């Protein structure tokens, strides 16, 4: 039996479901599957993992804490487990984290490493990779002692193949050497209603003046059940995240109602929202181009009008 180690990506005590496709892709006759769980919750993932053919769930820990993702500690712990358990094949999802961790593991093991595979054949030691944005397909054969595979998320459809798994503990004598310190993890997407699916959007421009001032838009959005958007100039000024930029190079939206607050109406902004059913503009400059594209225009100070609107809607 050859052993295969699968790195299980987790976040907030939940397993990334895309790993099930990877497990489906690497299991097969003659292979015994080990799942590496580092966040301390091995037991809670066992049911799902055995459902897809994992034989051993390795509750992997190190001298340093592993509850939070730390690429250095994680990679070294995985390497230690591979050596201790005699595992020579390692697979994972080719996600941002997978791309971070798998090459580190490969480097430590001096393994043949191949990322972004769309399928793997462990017996043949071959993988299929697509190149040139999917126009050519390459079949690549690997040689060596250790093998590391990053498999493209959702490239392989997950299919159950139930077995009974056992949880085993492995403690790696790995210390955090402090070479890498994670100071902050910033969430990428905005909270609340998804912009492209929202029926109502209230957007703020550079006139918002600060990140904090966006609060009046979020307050109004909450009452309206709306999503909040932004112009590029306000994104550039760090008042709002890029993920909510509306426009030519941001999101294209087409809600029932679009409320533009303190947005001048540059052509690139209009490109992203002009197909909205009803456009409302609030701007203190009566000559702002946004007024040529709107159904309802309010000339005035948004800091007065928006809170008043929120209050009126509450009533």
């Amino acid at each position: 039996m050859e052993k295969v180690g699968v790195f299980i990506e987790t976040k907030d005590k939940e397993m990334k479901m895309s790993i099930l496709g990877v497990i489906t892709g690497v299991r097969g006759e003659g292979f015994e599957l080990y799942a590496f769980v580092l966040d301390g919750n091995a037991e809670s993932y066992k049911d799902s993992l055995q459902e897809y053919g994992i034989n051993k769930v390795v509750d992997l820990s190190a001298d340093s804490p592993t509850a939070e993702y730390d690429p250095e500690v994680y990679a070294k712990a995985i390497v230690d487990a591979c050596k201790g358990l005699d595992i020579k094949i390692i697979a994972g999802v080719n996600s941002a984290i997978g791309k971070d961790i798998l090459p580190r593991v490969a480097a430590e093991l001096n393994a043949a490493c191949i990322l972004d595979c769309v399928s793997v054949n462990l017996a043949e030691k071959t993988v299929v990779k697509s190149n040139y944005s999917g126009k050519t397909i390459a079949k690549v054969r690997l040689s060596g002692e250790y093998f590391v595979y990053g498999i493209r998320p959702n490239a392989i459809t997950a299919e159950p193949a139930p077995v009974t798994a056992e949880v085993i503990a492995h403690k790696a004598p790995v210390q955090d050497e402090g070479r890498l310190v994670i100071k902050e993890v910033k969430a990428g997407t905005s909270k609340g209603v998804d912009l492209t699916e929202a029926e109502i959007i209230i957007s703020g421009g550079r006139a918002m003046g600060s990140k904090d001032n966006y609060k009046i838009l979020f307050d109004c959005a909450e009452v309206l059940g709306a999503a909040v958007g932004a112009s590029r100039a306000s994104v550039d000024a760090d008042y709002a995240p890029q993920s909510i930029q509306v426009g030519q190079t941001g999101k294209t939206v087409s809600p029932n109602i679009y409320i533009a607050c303190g947005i001048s109406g540059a052509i690139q902004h209009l490109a992203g929202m002009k197909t909205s059913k009803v456009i409302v503009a609030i701007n203190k400059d009566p000559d702002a181009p946004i007024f040529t594209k709107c159904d309802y225009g309010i000339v005035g100070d948004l800091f007065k009008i928006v809170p008043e609107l929120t209050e009126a809607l509450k009533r």
Partner: protein
Amino acid sequence: MPTTSELMKFAAPMLEMAQTVVEAKGEELKLCYQCGTCTSVCPWGNLKDFNPRKLIEMIRLGFEGFEDDSWKCVNCKLCWDKCPNQINIPQIFQSVRSILLAWNACPPELNIALTSLRDEGNPWQESKEKRDEWTKDFPVPAYEQGTEYLLFSCCTNDYDPRNKKDIKAVVEILNMAKVNYGYIGNKEVCCGDIALSAGENEGYGMLSNKNLEIFRELAVKKILTISPHCLNAFKNRYEFNEGEEVQSSHLVQTYAKLIEDKVLEPKGEIKNKVTYHDPCYLGRHNDIYDEPRFIINSIPGIEFVEMNNIRENSFCCGGGGGGCWLETVKGERLGDLRVLEAVETGAEVIITACPYCVQMLEASILGLGIDEKIKVRTVSELLLSSLKNEEL
């Protein structure tokens, strides 16, 4: 350990790539001797790791990894002018783009503009029936057979609220000078420059043929352009038939002549410190450097200062080659560097003569949050302010 040649075999899955690029009008690819001059002069080098020399070599060897970077080139022509072999490097990228387009591997935001070009004849996703909307309350003479100049307005001037101000200034000046010109309104379609630079050869062919048809139908002899991109398309790219003598010129040339002949006498003082940004398509692509400076210097009261990178060495705003439709993350925008260079001269106004430059530079000014310090005006806006004795 694998040998180098084994590695090359592994990493070069598509040696046909070079041949495909050559067939797509990129034959000059073969002439490159990898000196690296292009990389050292390319404006992107100031902001990020962008290496035309390496990309050329990757394409020749069929290495992967040139695809995304091939959309970065803004067709500023600096490398082409400096290359010891005079290789048309932007053309190589255009050829690569045409192949990427056929693979559906075009950046989505650019794709939207290209689709709009096909459907509506303009890249701004606006209706073709609304091109002349700005003339409803602002009469512009219509072009008829026998009119001396056809004023080719440019999509960006017809649709962009900011640049509509510029075209209105153009019209006022031409009227004051009693130039015999006319506008064809909704019959105009995009000159096709961005389709061409995006490698969308089919779209370009369609657009250029439509314009050529109209020029022929109306027996046009002289075309007056506002955008240097239209000028370049007509002068250097359009395939006019032999014997068809169509002269294309840029407005700044007309203005300079009118001032020289004293038909236009800018008398109003403009008490601003200004600098001039040479649009790549007006300067390097078409050698027009002196006229705009002559016009600026003819304005009484003005203080004109030059930036460091001017004329043949002008620094691109980032809008050419499809750049106006592509997002560039903050901190990596060419326009930001250009605006900061202008600020350094102490100028309060950047004068320029291209609608894309106006858009890019203004967006950079807003992005940098320095709109209290500096603004952008066109040569036409400057000239009109002086002619009407108004503030710039």
